[in-house]
């Protein structure tokens, strides 16, 4: 690493509540552009909650409340001028379980582009191929694009979901345990893709080896707090906090 990389996501003193439940406590973090940032921590510590704040998916949770500010490329995404729909297009998301629509592979990939008004078949064809190539799925499905995405294997489905998100050419991709429902071979393919991807990725994972394999930086959350954040190698080899050390050495789960 030559220079300090450019910050693309900045969270400043973020507190988040589900009703009375204080799910995130004063979280501040700077996430670097073009890097893979992993979020680890025990179940229920707020990783998914934090991730969903970054593309305003928590807007749909009744009774949820946010304090603090989050900036993407310098603009506040919860400010009065922010457009949640626009933010979700710039910040894509891949979920824990593959969730392709009950539509053809082609229509799955086209869903986002069609929403923004791209309708010409020639344009869509180009986008579909590009997105599927980017998700390393093109060769496997190029002859069966009209087949239902539900008929693919789990790993292929998850890469359809990646391609579907990529078709909008997002600046950032959020991934919430994207390989937890996949077998080792499918996992390896998705990991391979993440390592070579040319965009900012924030990934939640329960698998510390995975975090170590694919991420540049790692954030450790514990009970709603961001305990430690730093380059992945350092965090795993020389953790600064006892809680981090206990967690990565498996002393609690």
């Amino acid at each position, binding site marked *: 690493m030559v220079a300090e990389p450019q910050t693309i996501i900045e969270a400043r003193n973020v507190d988040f509540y589900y009703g009375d439940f204080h799910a995130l406590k004063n979280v501040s973090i700077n996430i670097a552009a073009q890097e893979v940032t992993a979020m680890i921590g025990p179940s229920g510590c707020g990783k998914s909650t934090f991730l969903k704040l970054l593309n305003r998916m928590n807007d749909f949770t009744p009774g949820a409340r946010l304090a603090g500010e989050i900036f993407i490329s310098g603009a506040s995404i919860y400010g009065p001028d922010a457009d949640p729909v626009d933010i979700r297009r710039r910040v894509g998301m891949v979920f824990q379980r593959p969730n392709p*629509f009950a539509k053809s592979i082609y229509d799955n990939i086209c869903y986002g582009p069609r*929403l923004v008004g791209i309708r010409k078949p020639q344009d869509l064809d180009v986008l579909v191929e590009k997105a599927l190539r980017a998700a390393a799925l093109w060769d496997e499905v190029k002859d069966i694009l009209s087949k239902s995405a*539900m008929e693919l294997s789990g790993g292929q489905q998850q890469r359809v*979901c990646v391609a579907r998100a990529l078709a*909008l050419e997002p600046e950032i991709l959020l991934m919430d345990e994207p390989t937890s429902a996949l077998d080792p071979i499918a996992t390896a393919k998705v990991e391979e893709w993440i390592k070579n991807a040319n965009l900012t990725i924030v990934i939640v994972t329960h698998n510390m080896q995975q975090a170590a394999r694919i991420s540049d930086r790692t954030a450790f959350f514990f009970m709603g707090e961001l305990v430690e954040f730093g380059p992945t190698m350092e965090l795993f080899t020389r953790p600064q906090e006892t809680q981090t050390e206990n967690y990565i050495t498996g002393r609690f789960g």
Partner: protein
Amino acid sequence: MLEAQKGFGRQRRYREQKLAFLAIRLAAGLSLGVMAAIIIYIVVNGVPALSWAFLTEFPRDNMSAGGIFPAIVGTVLLAVGALLTALPLGFGAAIYLAEYARPGPLVTAIRLGVANLAGVPSVVFGLFGLSLFVTTLGFGRSLLSGSLTLGLLILPTVTAAAEEALRQTPASFREAALALGANRWQAIRQVVLPAALPGMLTGAILALGRAAGETAPIVFTASAAYTLLLPDSIYREVMALPTHILNLATNSVHIEATRPQQFGSALVLLVLVLGLSTFAIVVRAKLRRGRQW
């Protein structure tokens, strides 16, 4: 000794299992048998009355001759009318309940209302339709009044089935669409509805099959004992198969002489209703292909 007990226990469990299976088989066989008996009875008695003329002609000679064409047409029109009434209302209510409504007293009340409505005897719907559509709104005894009444009758079933189908579509579909920049209505219309539609339609068509066979809701609101012509507007009375059978069997001049017509009509009605159910099942199977989750 312990070993012996084990063996004994196993033997007894085995016997119990055999007995249980036998009872279940008997129950299944019995209900199947009763159903088959009814169908065979109607087919055997109805088939002699069937002919091309029976299906395509108007009744003659005080219903003792001729066909049941206007009753078939009337039943189909009433069924279509009921569907046109119940689908928009029922699907709308189901979408509201499943997708938009925040849990609370209002939603609980609506859902209780829907559930209770499903248990109301059909004759009550008939009287309600008579008072509201026929009299108060002045639609008279007509295709319109009958369709609206039948529509209300199947509304709770249509709503409940549609809500169930919507709830069974995974929340992850919604999330995925929203995360791609869809608004809530787009997510529902483009992703949730297409996925839920087979289930929603199946429920509706099954309900319709039931409605097509109902007598009480239309006897006061829509059905004529006899019409000279097919209806040329929604304000006309229509003949219908269930009320036609009822009339022949209770009111007609020649109750005995019209037995073949009664069974013939019953058979046609049965085929119509079973046909609708089969159609519903085929539609579901077709639409579901490659869409399991």
